């Protein structure tokens, strides 16, 4: 079966294509088809898991060349090792549960079959991500799960909040992918391959310089930060709750957000090679976990509480993995890797259960606000117990699944006091906010009578998955019981198998912390012997900060998005005025220059020609003044000329050797006077004169 493991992720793709091309209008068939394919995948996954257990972690790889050059090639391939096998089972299990659950939850939605298409596409991408045998392939599916997450968050895209949330989710995770991409480029440039096996071999042999490795590892971790909603890119996950609740359960609780953890676990060799990078990972994980836990305490939206809880738990896992990398790099043994992956598995089950339960509650009361719920226990006979089982599990109560995995995480931090204390604090907060939720939703008096009365248990196809997941929430942890010789620890490991030593002290402290958290919640929200309002008022700034999610959205809006948009607008205007201005300015200058030349041509060159004509015209105009066309004028000149001739005759006869001055004077005087006479204004003519 392992040889044909690619079928596991191709089956959902087949389902997606069938629904898109053939089953769009046949909702029932589409959903059924989709569920059948995922069930087949589930069974195959279990088979693969069993085979892997039988072979004790022997990997199988298969290749398909994607792009091939002389120097390097990109390929797709399947790698099945214990980690993959576990993840396959987790993903297909939760996927199958969610698909069955959605039959009831999405009933009557106008885009019912499309929902199943998207779910199938997601499962295809997620399984491909898990099965990938190299970083290139994981990156491809990494992006594809981002796409399906985008599509599913925005499934009810008519809601503006959903439309905003899906964009935010995609872009925020893409910021992380940026680092991932840079890390991949570093690896491919310095190692020449992206194949896990070859790459880890090179890293193990020390073929890659430490600095490069650190940068590459942090780059890869950036991808995980984006996908797993770690600080500082955690802001998208709570908003992603705008999607349908089954989607939140599948993608944003159990599988896709865990992909970041999976990626860190998968590339653990890189982190082991670089202690600095591991420390960064651990610190980021811890910060995230703490932040999210403090926020979750004060939230009132049931899904958001769960979302922050998810972020917090993911931070837990990341922290454990980071500490493992650090300790191993320092030469110590650490249960971190085992703890992280183990918690990844158990968390997937109980968090999916919590979300599905929350979905069931929402389905019943049609609100997300826990302040409007209350006393629902008798109404929701299946949902409430399963939900509380999951809450106990996440709080880490013996002997539920969460107890075993959380215990290992606490154990991983033992050698780092700060981490240890804060981890316990987070465990306390986790127990507190989960049971705050439970007490407010299921116990006490109904706060909204109207909603209470209309509440009803969900249909069977919604409650069966709950029961099944509740079973897993209880039992899944038992595979990791430390006394088991072939348990989880000796199955999924990095480097050499880790054999946990059960520490009763640790277990006791962790359990005590969890129980005290539950107890505090009991006192505050069930007994009401401690007033939550009073405490809130006492630490009002902290309360407000927590309630407003430490203002991350506002800060990002203020620091990044607004400046970016203003910068973009500035660039646009720069483009229109600056760059284009230069182009247009050049054109305008050219036009100006040609205008100048045209002016020159018109007034200087042509002006000389026209000027000659103008001179003649003006002379003519001058002469025109005496050329009136009137007999009298002509008579005048006849007279003038007669006089002049007379003078000329006289002068030429009697004044010898001199110019005929008088003639000229008379002639000129006559002409000048004639012209002047025309120019001097005459007596005004009466109006009636010129009738």
């Amino acid at each position, binding site marked *: 079966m392992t040889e044909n493991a690619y079928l596991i992720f191709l089956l959902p793709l087949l389902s997606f294509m069938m629904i898109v091309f053939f089953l769009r209008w046949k909702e029932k068939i589409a959903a059924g088809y989709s569920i059948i394919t995922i069930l087949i995948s589930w069974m195959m996954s279990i088979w693969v898991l069993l085979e892997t257990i039988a072979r004790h972690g022997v990997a199988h790889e298969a290749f398909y060349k994607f792009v091939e050059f002389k120097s390097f090639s990109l390929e797709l391939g399947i790698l099945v090792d214990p980690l993959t096998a576990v993840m396959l089972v987790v993903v297909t299990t939760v996927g199958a549960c969610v698909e069955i659950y959605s039959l009831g939850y999405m009933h009557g939605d106008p885009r019912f079959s499309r929902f199943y298409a998207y779910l199938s596409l997601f499962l295809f991408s997620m399984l491909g991500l898990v099965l990938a045998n190299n970083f290139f392939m994981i990156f491809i599916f990494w992006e594809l799960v981002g796409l399906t997450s985008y599509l599913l968050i925005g499934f009810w895209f008519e809601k503006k909040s959903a439309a905003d949330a899906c964009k935010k989710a995609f872009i925020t995770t893409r910021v992380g992918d940026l680092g991932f991409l840079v890390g991949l480029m570093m690896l491919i440039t310095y190692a020449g391959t992206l194949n896990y096996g070859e790459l880890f071999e090179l890293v193990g042999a020390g073929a890659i310089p430490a600095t490069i490795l650190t940068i590459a590892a942090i780059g890869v971790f950036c991808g995980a930060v984006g996908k797993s909603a770690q600080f500082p890119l955690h802001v998208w996950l709570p908003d992603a709750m705008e999607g349908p609740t089954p989607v939140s359960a599948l993608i944003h609780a159990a599988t896709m957000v865990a992909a970041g953890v999976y990626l860190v676990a998968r590339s653990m060799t890189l982190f082991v090679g670089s202690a600095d990078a591991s420390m960064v990972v651990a610190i980021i994980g811890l910060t995230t976990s703490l932040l999210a836990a403090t926020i979750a305490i004060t939230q009132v939206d049931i899904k958001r509480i769960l979302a922050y809880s998810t972020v917090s738990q993911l931070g837990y896992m990341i922290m454990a993995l980071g500490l493992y990398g650090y300790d191993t790099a320092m030469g110590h043994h650490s249960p971190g890797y085992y703890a992280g992956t183990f918690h990844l598995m158990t968390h997937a089950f109980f968090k999916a259960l919590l979300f599905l339960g929350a979905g069931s509650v929402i389905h019943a009361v049609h609100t997300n606000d826990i302040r409007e719920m209350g006393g629902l226990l008798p109404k929701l006979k299946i949902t409430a117990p399963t939900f509380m089982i999951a809450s106990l599990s996440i709080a880490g109560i013996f002997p539920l699944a969460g107890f075993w995995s959380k215990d290992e995480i606490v154990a991983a931090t033992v050698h780092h006091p700060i981490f240890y204390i804060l981890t316990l604090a987070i465990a306390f907060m986790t127990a507190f906010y989960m049971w705050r939720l439970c007490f407010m939703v299921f116990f006490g008096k109904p706060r909204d009578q109207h909603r209470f009365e209309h509440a009803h248990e969900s249909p069977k196809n919604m409650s069966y998955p709950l029961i099944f997941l509740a079973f897993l929430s209880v039992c899944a942890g038992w595979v990791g019981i430390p006394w088991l010789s072939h348990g989880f620890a000796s199955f999924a490991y990095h480097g050499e198998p880790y054999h946990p030593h059960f520490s009763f002290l640790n277990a006791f402290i962790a359990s005590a912390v969890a129980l005290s958290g539950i107890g505090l919640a009991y006192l505050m929200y069930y007994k009401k012997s401690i007033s939550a309002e009073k405490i809130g008022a006492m630490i009002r700034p902290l309360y407000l900060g927590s309630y407003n999610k430490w203002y991350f959205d506002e800060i990002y809006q203020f620091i990044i998005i607004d400046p970016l948009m203003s910068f973009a607008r500035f660039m646009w205007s720069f483009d229109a005025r600056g*760059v284009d201005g230069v182009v247009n300015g050049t054109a305008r200058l050219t036009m100006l220059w040609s205008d100048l030349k045209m002016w020159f041509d018109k007034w200087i060159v042509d002006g000389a020609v026209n000027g000659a004509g103008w001179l003649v015209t003006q002379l003519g105009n001058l002469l025109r003044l005496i050329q009136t066309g009137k007999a009298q004028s002509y008579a005048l000149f006849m007279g003038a000329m007669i006089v002049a001739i007379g003078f000329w005759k006289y002068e030429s006869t009697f004044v010898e050797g001199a110019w005929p001055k008088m003639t000229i004077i008379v002639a000129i005087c006559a002409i000048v006077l004639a012209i002047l006479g025309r120019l001097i204004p005459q007596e005004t003519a009466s109006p009636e004169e010129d009738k």
Partner: protein
Amino acid sequence: MDFPILSTLVLFPIVGMVAVMLLPKDAHGAIRWTAVGFSLPPMVLSIWLVFDYFANFAAAGTMAYMEGPFEWIPSLNIQYLMGADGISIPMLALTGLLTTLSLIASFGIKVRVKEFFAFFLLLEAGMMGVFCALDFFLFYVFWEIMLVPMYFLIGIWGGPQKEYAAIKFFLYTLFGSIFMLVAILIMYFTSEPHSLSILTLMDHGPTLTHTLQLVCFCFFFIAFAIKVPVWPFHTWLPDAHVQAPTAVSVILAGVLLKMGTYAMLRINWPMFPDALRTLGFWIAVLGVIGIIYGALVSLAQKDLKKLVAYSSVSHMGYCMLALGAFSSVTAIAGCMFQMISHGLITSALFLLVGVIYDRAHTREIAAFGGLGSKLPIYTGIMVFFSMAALGLPGMSGFVSEFMIFVGAFGALNKVLVGIAVLGVVLGAAYMLRMVQNVFLGEFNLARWGDLTDINGRELVTVIPLIILTLFIGIYPKPLVILMNGTLEHLIGLMSR
């Protein structure tokens, strides 16, 4: 003598143009189908060329289907010389395909139908010629021939500011062409005997002095960079794209921009390796500026078509980044991939913007909202291409971007490429912002209640692009094999 395939590619559209011109003016149906009919054989032939080259020549990457050299103007040693190799064959196929699709997409043209289709076929001839010509004179002639129909196509059938856009496009490109002409003349007069054959001059280029190489390189580069368009020569592009009719935008984005990068790869880069080594880094810098700048400006756009136009600037920036990393086969192959995938994706986006513009008569992003519930198929296709444009795996854009980044990262300054990667996020930002504002959110029933979904004819124009985008995204290997030999050869020339 073999059948002159390349000449047929060039001449057939011209025959088609004459045929269209001979039809009566009002027979719109006949004109349309004649034009489409005459564009089909070149398309089929060019696609057949892909398979033929793949089967027979790809391994060696040689110049194939040579025609000539025939003496054309013997006194100047101008020859008729055509040929195609691994980088021109995909471009020819792209040209053939996009021309046919654009012709089908422009059935909505109502005014001066005959002239439109005639000009379009002339345009196709010019484009085909540019990708085939191996003689500088011939190349220059085809390069300029295209301007004429383009000018009229924008200037007559364009939007409100069509004259401005058309003149800007025309003058800007012509401005660049003058530099190219000077460079060609320099090459011509320094070679002995005087020659205009690109293949001959390929050996002559490196023998020039360094300064002269730089001059020629820069002159050619300016001419091609305007066409690409490389930042800061890009400002004609938004105007031309926005004002041009849909089909012309498609050709402009799909083929014309590629001519710049193609010409750089064909002429500029291998002919002046010394200058390339000097300037390669700065070209990559221009490319990175283009990526970030184009993405940022797209982010601020209010007009759907302008957004796509500026995204072209960003996407062609990837090509320039890859061309700056000339020593890496991966990067250059990525550049070719990016040319093809941008040709497919942006053309499709322009087609789709045209579809919505035909119905709504506005392209303002803010005017829409929630179209997803009214036009499900259109929305699906548009989201598909938006995802392709932002480089989602499984589609061609991802392959090209990844190859470019990987190649450039190995060959260039790491920080520079690191900055370029930012373009991926910005690309997602502007594309998703557009998708959100247009397709998601509440639907304005009162205003867009009678919008209809994409129709059959429009689907016909888009579906081939979907198939090719997916095919290249999922199985890029054949395309790599098709180009690899040629690229190795070119890179050998570049690293002389």
